[in-house]
């Protein structure tokens, strides 16, 4: 019953994403074709072709219907800059982004939750002050600036552009090492900023639990301090923290866009940058729908995971 509700809610959200993607690019004051081809030599024929592609000559509900049905078929239109189907371009760039975002998220969640727990448990200790201070500062740092700084400071130690060198031997090990080498700086950048948020979330979540009476019960039973923390406090505090981590997945997405831009990492983020400098509306629309859709799905997963972890929430 609840599971059906959750799935239904996610489905509604996905439709809302599609609607949003449609209307966001129809609020353009003036002719989108003109602004899209601004500063480029275009013939009247090309403009007419674009207009037909957008379907701007047809009434709005017809436009939406054809957009929506093609979306269901996985057709996101054709990119203006790449002159290829948007879905194809996006699929190509998915791998590198998953690698970068995946690596960074795993490290950031692990590190962030661990540091947050430590800091909260010894509240106002030197460790807590240092961790909180660093986290607050990192939270204030724009991701792209941190990337640029790292690049400048490390010099030639790490490659700073792209995902692999052209002259690397084609065998798997050399290729993997090369990608790993390229991955170092972008992941550090992404981890630093995202991790700061997780530290603060985990810390405040555990602080909320610190006064819970069941911790007094655990102490009265004769449990060691670290057992009280591991067995009783953390399992409770981690639940809201995980939900928040997933809720703020948009933060990771935002970080990925600027990080990939700075390091020319050939993923969706860099594609975003290319699309907006165009501007390539079909590509942007496709990217918006895909990322927003992914976030909605991530949230559904977080909800389900929460249901599995927290006995108070019954999902099925």
């Amino acid at each position, binding site marked *: 019953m609840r599971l059906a509700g959750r799935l239904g809610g996610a489905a509604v959200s996905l439709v809302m994403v599609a609607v949003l993607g449609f209307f966001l690019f129809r609020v353009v004051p003036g002719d989108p074709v003109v602004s899209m081809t601004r500063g480029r030599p275009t013939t009247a024929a090309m403009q007419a072709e674009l207009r037909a592609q957008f379907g701007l000559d047809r009434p709005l509900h017809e436009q939406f219907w054809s957009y929506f049905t093609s979306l269901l078929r996985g057709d996101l239109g054709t990119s203006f800059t790449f002159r290829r189907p948007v879905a194809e371009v996006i699929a190509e760039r998915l791998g590198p982004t998953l690698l970068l975002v995946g690596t960074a998220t795993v490290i950031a969640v692990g590190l962030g939750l661990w540091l947050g727990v430590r800091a909260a448990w010894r509240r106002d200790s030197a460790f807590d002050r240092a961790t909180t201070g660093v986290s607050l500062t990192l939270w204030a740092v724009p991701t792209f600036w941190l990337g640029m700084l790292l690049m400048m400071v490390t010099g030639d130690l790490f490659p700073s552009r792209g995902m692999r060198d052209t002259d690397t031997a084609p065998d798997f090990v050399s290729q993997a090492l090369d990608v790993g080498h390229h991955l170092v700086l972008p992941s550090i950048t992404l981890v630093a900023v995202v991790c700061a948020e997780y530290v603060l979330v985990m810390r405040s979540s555990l602080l909320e639990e610190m006064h819970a009476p069941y911790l007094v019960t655990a102490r009265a039973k004769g449990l060691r301090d670290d057992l009280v923390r591991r067995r009783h406090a953390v399992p409770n505090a981690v639940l809201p923290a995980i939900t928040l981590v997933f809720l703020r997945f948009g933060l990771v997405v935002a970080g990925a*866009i600027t990080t990939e831009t700075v390091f020319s990492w050939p993923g969706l983020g860099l594609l975003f940058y290319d699309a907006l400098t165009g501007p390539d509306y079909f590509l942007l629309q496709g990217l*918006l729908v895909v990322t927003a859709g992914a976030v909605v799905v991530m949230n559904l997963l977080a909800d389900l995971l929460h249901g599995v972890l927290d006995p108070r929430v019954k999902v099925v």
Partner: protein
Amino acid sequence: MNRLTGFSRAGMAGAAILVVAALVALIAPLLISADALDVTRVTAAPWQTPGAQHWLGTDHTGRSVALLVVQGAGTSLFVGLTAAVLSVGIGTLVGIVSGHFGGLVAGALLRVTDFFLVLPALVLAIALSTVLPRGLGTIVLAIGLTSWPSTARMVRAQTLTIEARPFVERARALGGGHGHVIGRHVLPSVVPLVLVNTTLAVASSIVAESTLAFLGLGDPTRISWGAMLHQAQLHGAVPQRAWWFLLPPGLAIVVVVLAFTLVGRALEAVVTPKR
């Protein structure tokens, strides 16, 4: 009891930084001649290292980095403040309406809030600023219209908490209507939280502004810290190791954002009752 005694030292330091930043932003335009910032009229050589004449060096066009940073303060602070006020304003309205009134409207508002809460705000802001004409107003709209859901969520939660309290039931039993309950009980208890939220929202709005400007979506006619970093990236400050062009605008962002965050957290500690 003096409320200020609860204000942490970090909060005081943050407030002091903000006062200085505000003064700089207000006074700078009066002291800097337009010529010094006009690419076509500057005389200094590009990419000069810091020295006696330009003590933060010059950028790729020969303009003084120090003057650019000072001039950029105004844009960053203005966008940060207005976007935060817009965002918190929308959030507070939506939060109170969806918390106080039940029924279909509240349900729909809550659904929309939750939807926008999970969407990546920056992606939406990018899309908005791409389709709208470039300008300061666009940036403010793009940030303000995409960052309100967290405030709405929080204000709604606070509204529900207050409305569940017996004193609201007492007010209703006395004959008080919607206006009375909202005006006399809900709003006064929401205001401190809204204040805290505004302060924190300014911090994130400034970061968002710098990100949009860095991606080339800023107002091309204005100097801002993010726009400076955009230029630095575009013209290869990193490979040239022009640290004097990279560090100052970034540090300015970090310091001001951190200051707003510290003030916000200190305010939060004052307004939320201790256990």
